[in-house]
């Protein structure tokens, strides 16, 4: 199998609001991320779900007009501006409509930090979300040993020699396994994130 995938990236496909499959995939990948981020900001489950829906609505409106220039702003950053804006709106609205005392939303608003948006938190959540989703997609393509070689060293941060010994592999073989899984992961992630034209530059060092 040649490495090249000819299917356009998810973001491109999203411009067609009729492409239900693309939109379903988008919603299933990104809803948990948005939801988890909102929960991390202190929203209750019901409110987080509401905000996530607002974000999806805004994205659905904007993406068809979205001129995506990877050199200017990544999708991750752009999505964050939307999420942050909706979460801030949420807090601002709640501030204007005081609820009964004891309402957990009020408490959370008081305890939460509506104004200091954590870009770093978002970046990590975003990465983790995408990675875990991609990992799920490709897990079945690899033998257990290959997969564990990658997962234990790259994610669980175990020592390479130790893992190699556990799995009965040479260090060379371990490197090969890591490379295979990493390459495949990167392909899957890019198929969601970028335009195929924005080619991955294989950096060294």
């Amino acid at each position, binding site marked *: 199998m040649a490495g090249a995938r000819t299917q356009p990236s998810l973001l491109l496909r999203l411009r067609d609001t009729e492409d*239900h499959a693309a939109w379903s995939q988008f919603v299933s990948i990104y809803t948990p991320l948005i939801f988890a981020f909102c929960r991390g900001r202190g929203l209750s489950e019901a409110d987080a779900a509401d905000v996530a829906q607002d974000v999806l609505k805004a994205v659905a*409106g904007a993406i068809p007009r979205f001129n995506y220039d990877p050199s200017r702003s990544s999708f991750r950053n752009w999505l964050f501006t939307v999420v942050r804006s909706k979460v801030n709106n949420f807090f601002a609205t709640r501030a204007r409509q005081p609820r009964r005392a004891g309402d957990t939303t009020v408490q959370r608003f008081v305890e939460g930090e509506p104004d200091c948006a954590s870009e770093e938190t978002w970046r990590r959540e975003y990465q983790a979300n995408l*990675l875990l989703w991609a990992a799920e997609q490709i897990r079945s393509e690899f033998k257990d040993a290959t997969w564990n070689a990658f997962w234990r060293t790259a994610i669980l941060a175990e020592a390479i020699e130790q893992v190699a010994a556990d799995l009965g592999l040479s260090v060379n073989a371990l490197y090969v396994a890591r490379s295979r899984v990493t390459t495949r992961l990167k392909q899957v992630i890019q198929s969601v994130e970028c335009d195929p034209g924005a080619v991955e530059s294989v950096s060294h060092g």
Partner: protein
Amino acid sequence: MADGCPARATLDALAAGKISEDERGQLETHFERCLLCAEQLEAITRAQLKQMVGLDGSHVVARLPREQRSSDPVVLASLMRSALEESLAFASVDPVRLIELLDPPRAQGFLGTFAGYDVTEIAGSGGMGLVLKARDPTLERTVALKILSPSRAWDEESVGRFLREARTIAAIQHDNIVPVYSAGREKDLPYLVMPFYVAGTLEQRLQQVPRMGVAHVIRIGMQLARALEVTHAQGVLHRDIKPSNVLLEGGLDRVRLADFGLAQPVSQSFGAQELIAGTPEYMSPEQARGEPVDARSDLFGLGALLFRLATGENVYPGESVKEILRSAAGGNPKTLRDVGADVTPALAQILNRLLAPRPEERFASATEVVDALARAASRYRRWIKRGAGVALAACLILSGTVAALDCSGITAIVNTLLSRGRGESFFIRGRFGTYRELADAVGAARAGEIVEVRYSGERVTRNFRLGGKPLIIRAVKGFSPILYATNNAQPFILADGPLTLEGLALMRFTKGNAFTALITAEGAPLALLNCRLFRGTPLSANRLIRSGSFVPLSDEDRVFPPLIALDPSSRCLMRNCLVTSSQAGAIALRGEGREPIRADIENCFFAIRRVFAFRSVPGFRAELKASASAFVSEELLDLGNADMVERATVQWADCIFDLFQGTFVRLYRHGNGEWFRAVDWKEANTVYAGRGDFVRDRRGRRVASEAEWNTLARLSTNSHITTDRRLFAGIVMRANPQVSASDANLDGLQTRFDPKLIGEGKPYDVFRTRPEHREWQEKVQRAVREWQR
């Protein structure tokens, strides 16, 4: 670097996935031998990982379930220990007691052993005792162990009773009852073995989502009532109905009642509070008083549970167990009104009856409850509230990405041909097939689909309802359909799901009285884009159709139902619409609910008797917003029973009001005169043409003068009241939003209202039959003709 080592570019290509399978195999063979190349490959991998994972994978690990976070048994054991500590803290269980309770674990990964089961974790705890998640080693299945609390006094008699009832339940097999696998005694403690439901209890769910909608309340109510039906028939009472005793098997579609008969009174003496039951929040009055109980006591508990589901609050006021018990014994529950519940009348009736303080006032049996709920269900159309698929449909409906009104694609072409050939003008976008009647197309459409209307001119259209599903109904570009409703006994459209109408004209002509609205939004958002709504008499209809102009406002002072009725939990959005009627209201807002009822209007034109009417009930809240719109009307806002309005927020921006009766606010009742405190009136950049009596009561008497009104309404500095009708007509008719400097007192006043955007952008006339407006009418017509030129 020896021969045979691949070039750097090859390595890059490999890492980019651009190498064929065969070449990859060869390269990998090489790497197995050549450490140098393997290390080079690894360097590339590391760079890639840095991009994808960052400096370390800890944020990824944090999102994994505990048992996947390490492959090291030592680390895992320590993770499990901290899990135990956390759940102990959560369950507020005495750890010493727990250790005593459990035998040491037989295998790794377990907390301990109990009665031969391997205990995995604490699933929950309550006043009754502990629930443990465990594994049956023989049958290799996961179970829940419910161990009754050692801190309560269990005498032989109670234990015996408990085990007898457990046997009876074990013999009953019902979809809505948690089966009992076995029961026994271990270390002198009675315990039950049941299936373990991963989805948890209703109480846990309520902690996360405090309230649910009517559909869920009814569905859960029916399941629990059926469970009670079956067990009552066997002579077993539950005695302790509460959300933590309702287990969810998956979602809310299958709930099971657990823990029958555990709440045994230790002593039967009057006033005894030594009840095994942990919390009195769901107790019937007779139970709280220690009196003998029967099946109807369980029905009360069911009512209290459903009350909590519907409102998010407990039925008894009070903070401490003592206070709650006192409320319970005194028979002083809250009412649905007190908490502002958002339930249908049928459900409210059922709840009130279940919660009646005297057993003889309640339903006589669980069977009656099942029947009552079934009737309530069939009257209520549920609509899907959450789920990614519908989130998407909601996105598409409300975000306006439904773009061009023209067809595209093969199905559209086929449908166009079919519709021309068959004369059937309705079809569903993306699907083959045409329909003769709009009601049929709506019936056949699935949630989130678009029904397209392809005809012009007037067609008699049957009344229809959405049936709970989100829909868009729109005119195909180039067509101006007029939907003409003739059945006045029902609303023309009952929008019991999210509805968007685009490019349609709706008309209804009344011979005699009709008591329903043109569109009723029942608990759902309604959006009207580029629509025209008319209601009038047949005479005016003809004039309307021929001239494309408004219905003249009549002198009749009868109360007719509105064009749009918004029921609790609904809201409406209007853009570029035209609304006209010779009778009463444009938009009526009715009832009260958790959320204020909202209307959001932009660039619309209303020629109508009364723009907004509140059908106020206690706790009524509304939010009205209008911008860049023009209103020609007798009255702007009818507060109805003003004392009941809790809060009305009103915002006008860039609007024109021609209130030729001059009434801004009409009050039906305004007893204490404090009604204006409930109204938050904000406007900017608006112009009012009116005179006198800003606020009137129902007999038309003035309630506040202009000076008082200015105080009440806090008119902003760039708004203006003028009585110069010429001026007003000029503003309304002008296509150019800029007001020229020769218009005195209105320097800088702009209006954004653009009549060209209304409906199809056809020009319109405004004229009236009132004698005092005839002159104005002529002036207006002249202005229109000039504008058209």
